[in-house]
């Protein structure tokens, strides 16, 4: 087994709601090593964002996290006190979010917000913080970096703000970077630039990158490993080539058929679809969550489904024998 920087085993997130308990994340296991990009992909409500927030200890109030193991560089985060988590967050593990327009505080300058984690985690004095901020802004491709420090977030475009967010996350030289839909709010041409930037920084700094997205195109472009989530579960996980090339889970297979590809998908013919809709996660269940929508469903799918793994480290949760 490779040495993982972040190792998550059987992570669950439960949210109490009016009608009972919402099992938003169920027994999700992930691992990510230095220099790797793990993409967590799934549709809205599948629990992918909550998984990343749970790792950072940033779940909304009320949500309950439990797991068999949650370790960062060998350190047990499950039992880490709040102060220890605060010391890690923004320092050795950093995070960026979906909405660059609202993720920066409108009342403070870019420079102040960039310096904040650096100063707080005791990496140096204000002068060093400023130098580091300028250096990183240049590195994320922002021109006239020094003059940007005195600007306010509203004076920058969405693409620039996301670059600032990335620079901010890198201020303390983190080992793990979590990015929750970092390009979803951006235009396609900007999206490519931001992804390129993330990929470059990851290479240069040897970051472990955990990227949460709904876009399989993004996944294909940057992932070394992919985890597909459905209804709170990781239904399939493995090296990117394996998951895209020989998807084992019917959900992954269906998802890939839904996406039109210019020049390949035949025009004028219906796209592949996944019939039905996601089951309610309130109350929880033992059987395969995809059973009602699966073209291969059979009686045995009502039983709890064990996870299977092949020699290449490709895991999936389905009772079907892999074909071909």
């Amino acid at each position, binding site marked *: 087994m490779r040495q993982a920087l972040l190792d998550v085993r059987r992570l669950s997130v439960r949210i109490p709601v009016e009608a009972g308990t919402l099992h938003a994340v169920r027994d999700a296991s992930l691992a990510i090593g230095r220099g790797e990009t793990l993409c967590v992909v799934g549709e809205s409500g599948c629990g992918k964002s909550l998984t990343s927030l749970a790792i950072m200890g940033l779940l909304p109030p009320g949500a309950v996290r439990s797991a068999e193991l949650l370790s960062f560089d060998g350190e047990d985060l499950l039992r880490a006190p709040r102060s220890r988590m605060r010391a890690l967050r923004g320092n050795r593990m950093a995070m960026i979010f979906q909405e660059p327009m609202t993720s920066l505080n409108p009342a403070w300058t870019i420079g102040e917000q960039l310096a904040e984690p650096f100063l707080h985690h005791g990496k140096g004095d204000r002068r060093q913080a400023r130098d580091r901020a300028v250096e990183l802004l240049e590195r994320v491709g922002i021109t006239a970096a020094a003059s940007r420090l005195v600007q306010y977030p509203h004076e920058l475009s969405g693409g620039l703000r996301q670059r600032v967010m990335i620079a901010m996350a890198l201020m303390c030289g983190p080992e793990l970077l979590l990015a929750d839909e970092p390009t979803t709010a951006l235009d396609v041409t900007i999206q490519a630039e931001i992804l390129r930037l993330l990929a470059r920084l990851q290479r240069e700094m040897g970051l472990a990158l955990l990227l949460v997205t709904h876009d399989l195109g993004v996944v*294909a472009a940057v992932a070394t490993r992919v985890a597909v989530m459905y209804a709170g579960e990781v239904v399939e996980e493995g090296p990117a080539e394996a998951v895209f090339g020989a998807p084992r889970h019917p959900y992954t297979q269906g998802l890939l*058929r839904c996406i039109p590809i210019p020049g390949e998908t035949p025009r004028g013919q219906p796209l592949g679809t996944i019939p039905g809709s996601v089951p309610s996660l309130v109350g929880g269940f033992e059987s395969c969550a995809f059973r009602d929508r699966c073209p291969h469903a059979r009686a045995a799918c009502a039983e709890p489904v064990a996870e299977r793994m092949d020699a290449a480290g490709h895991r999936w949760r389905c009772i079907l024998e892999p074909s071909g």
Partner: protein
Amino acid sequence: MTAPLLQIRDVVRRFGVRRGVFAPRRTLTAVAGVSLDLPRGEVLGLVGESGCGKSTLARIVLGLDKPTEGEVLIDGRPVASLHRLERSRLVQPVFQDPYSSLNPRRSVEAIIGQPLLVHGEGTPAERRDRVAEMLGLVGLGPRHAAAYPSQLSGGQRQRVAIARALILRPALVVCDEPTSALDVSVQAQILNLLMELRARLGLSYLFISHNLAVVQLVASRVAVMYLGRVVEEGDPETVLRTPAHPYTRALLASVLQPRPGRGLPDPQLAGSFPNPLEPPSGCAFHPRCPLAVPRCAAERPGLDPATGEHRAACHFAALAET
């Protein structure tokens, strides 16, 4: 040859904008002279990034906004001067956000039947029958009639919005990013539904999207917009195979496909989207264009019809063709 169903003629739309209550007024040109035709029964795909003016154009086609200059004809009649009831029989919208496009206080039946009510068509019983028929047409069941929008999923809501748009049997439907807010599996369902309905009912669509992959799938013609202007137009196969405008090429390269191993596309564009309040001189794309020469900053290339069915507003369009 019969006249196209939709004719957009030199449409310009300017807004006076204020950035604050007391800031000075400035002029924003959202649409800067667009001419497009949509033949009956076809789908015109309009592609562009946020701020390119495609949604403003959609509103003008719907008659919800008036052009500053130029005009829009549907079935040969100017939309801007039609009575609201007449207009609504010609053209109907399907919007992006299925959450805000349905009144939360109305039942599905009331929402879909509302156009008939406004037009004073039929008795309540007849209207109920028509609504039931529409529900079936968009793949919803009679049990959904009494539901409220909050009880429906995003895909179901979008089906309701489509049913409302089609109940008056309009010739033209303006789909403004109809699947952008939906998950991919639902997006495929809605795209299939739209294509099937078009074939069945002989509809024409003005289909607006930022997603080139989706547009090329459904459209019989494609127009690419940048900063209020159409920069390229043609049939989807040609535009896709031999894009003539560097912006189209950049857009095409930015479409990430679910195929591993291709990595990220090479950088195509310099700089960022310009401030629409101060559009660049000449070709509005020149500050970001890899091909730009001094001529581009001085002289705005026209959308050259000389190249036939495939038009592009670029000084180097002919070069790309070969």
